[in-house]
């Protein structure tokens, strides 16, 4: 994996690069390869059959739909939260700022359990929502709620530095020239933070598609209704359909690759956008 290096007086090049590559291959690359090779054992017909299986198709719809919706919700609320934390001072701001990372530090099973407790028919919020006829637990709404919580830190944390670094003087100039708040937001703030917003969106979306722990508690895993793709993979494994599980796993792996690539490109764009005119 590693080629020649430029000359450096520092020691440990061979040791650290060698060890890193070795350990990485052993723990990450070899098992991934095992799954990919296992998946190639599936015949073309069986693969097509698996792809158009109604349960599989509906799991894609649910996984993609709820992840997309949750990431969009996070773009709106994430922007509001990031703006509040970077531009306003209020009592408790530092505590709120530290709390943003909570969904990241909290085990997903605990997030799932906690959300189920609150949004269940007899939970604090579930009770209120049931009165207006909204059922959250065991529906797609519940999955969206869980994915919104899980994705929130990604959007807020990518937006915060962008909003803090944004060229305030341009906003000021626009205001001096008579631009209204809406115009300033639409023509100056949004274009400046757009790459960061899209990066956060992509990260939240990618995380949502793969998420398992927080969803299984709140979704109830009803086949065809609230069954996400990762749950389907677990089921295939429990039925000893290893090849099917590997094939579905590979599809998810491809999605992860595409998302990782898009995120890297978006981040590069974001960095360029932020530092234009600064150097």
């Amino acid at each position, binding site marked *: *994996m*590693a080629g*020649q*290096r*430029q000359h450096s*007086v520092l020691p*440990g*090049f061979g040791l*650290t*690069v060698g*060890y*890193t590559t070795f*350990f*990485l291959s052993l*723990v*990450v690359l*070899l*098992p991934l390869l*095992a*799954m990919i090779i296992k998946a190639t054992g599936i015949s073309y017909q069986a693969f097509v059959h698996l792809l158009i299986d109604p349960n599989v198709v509906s799991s894609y719809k649910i996984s993609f739909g709820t992840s997309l919706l949750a990431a969009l919700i996070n773009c709106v609320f994430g922007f509001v*939260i990031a*703006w*509040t*934390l*970077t*531009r306003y001072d209020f009592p408790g701001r530092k505590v*709120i700022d*530290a*709390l943003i*990372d*909570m969904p990241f*530090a909290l*085990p997903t*099973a*605990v997030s799932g*359990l*906690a*959300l189920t*407790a609150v949004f269940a028919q007899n939970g604090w919020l579930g009770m209120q929502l049931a009165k207006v006829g909204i059922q959250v637990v065991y529906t797609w709404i519940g999955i969206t709620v869980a994915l919104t919580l899980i994705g*929130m830190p990604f959007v807020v*944390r990518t937006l*915060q530095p962008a909003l*803090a670094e944004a060229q305030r003087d341009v906003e000021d100039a626009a205001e001096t020239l008579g631009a209204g708040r809406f115009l300033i937001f639409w023509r100056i703030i949004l274009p400046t933070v757009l790459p960061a917003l899209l990066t956060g969106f992509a990260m939240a979306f*990618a995380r949502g598609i*793969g*998420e*398992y*722990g927080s969803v299984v*508690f709140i979704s109830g895993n009803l086949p065809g209704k609230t069954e996400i793709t*990762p*749950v389907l*993979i*677990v089921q295939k494994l429990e039925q*000893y359909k*290893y090849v099917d*599980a590997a094939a579905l*796993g590979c599809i*998810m792996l491809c999605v*992860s690759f595409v998302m*990782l690539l898009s995120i890297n490109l978006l981040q590069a764009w974001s960095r360029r956008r932020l530092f234009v005119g600064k150097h």
Partner: protein
Amino acid sequence: MAAGPSKQMLAELASRPGANALTDKLIRWCFISVSLLFLAALLIAPLGSVLTMALASGLGAYFASFADSDTQSAIKLTLTTAAIVVPLNTVFGIAAAWAIAKFEFRGKSILITAIDLPIAVSPVVSGLIYVMLFGAQGWFGMWLQDHNISIIFAVPGIVLATMFVTFPYVARELIPLMQQLGNDEEEAAITMGAGGLMTFFRVTLPKIRWGLIYGVILTNARAMGEFGAVSVVSGHIRGFTNTMPLHIEILYQEYSFVGAFAVASLLMLLAIFTLVIKTLVEWRGHRG
């Protein structure tokens, strides 16, 4: 790292003409309330209800739920797994960060992407790949069976899956930090005759220790809390291959809510502890 507003910037914002205009006050009030309401509904209320449910039958029942032998063995297994995974991934993270931050070489960006892979992969896939390697129908399945070694549905599988999931965290924390700090001091130490290990322990380690501490704490939190990957490889054998997060699910499905929420409250404390360390590390970083 969180980029908070500087006191200076906020003071400057407050001193602007028109800062007290009614519309500005209204917008400000709206933004703060929407933020607080969103976090209250999605974060504070759920966490509060974990505590309420755990203590629903009183403190006695709460503590009694930890006396259960299955719960105890779940806690033990979680601690054991973390005790194996965290040191291994810490050593890997330091080696990877040294290689990537200190040297320029071909394939470096591929290496960085490969290290990041476990974060992008679904937890279920993370468990699945080890089943494909060591499971009954996996690559080494027959060989392992012949030699009476069980990895899947046993503790080694749980350790491996946890290692995969928490693989990148120390490296990701250290790489940007070490790149930002540069190589000058290390190069000076080496030029003056210090050995590689001495340079690392006396020059590099003191500079990166806060970042390292946070990386280790985060790895630990993710290792103790991993659910999806571990769920796939564990086989859910009570008292043997149940970690704390898996035990929460089993207790919940058996309607022993106090037990489920009590174990959840322990993991919640771990998350709060992690965030406190993170805040301390950032505070140190700003001062140093």
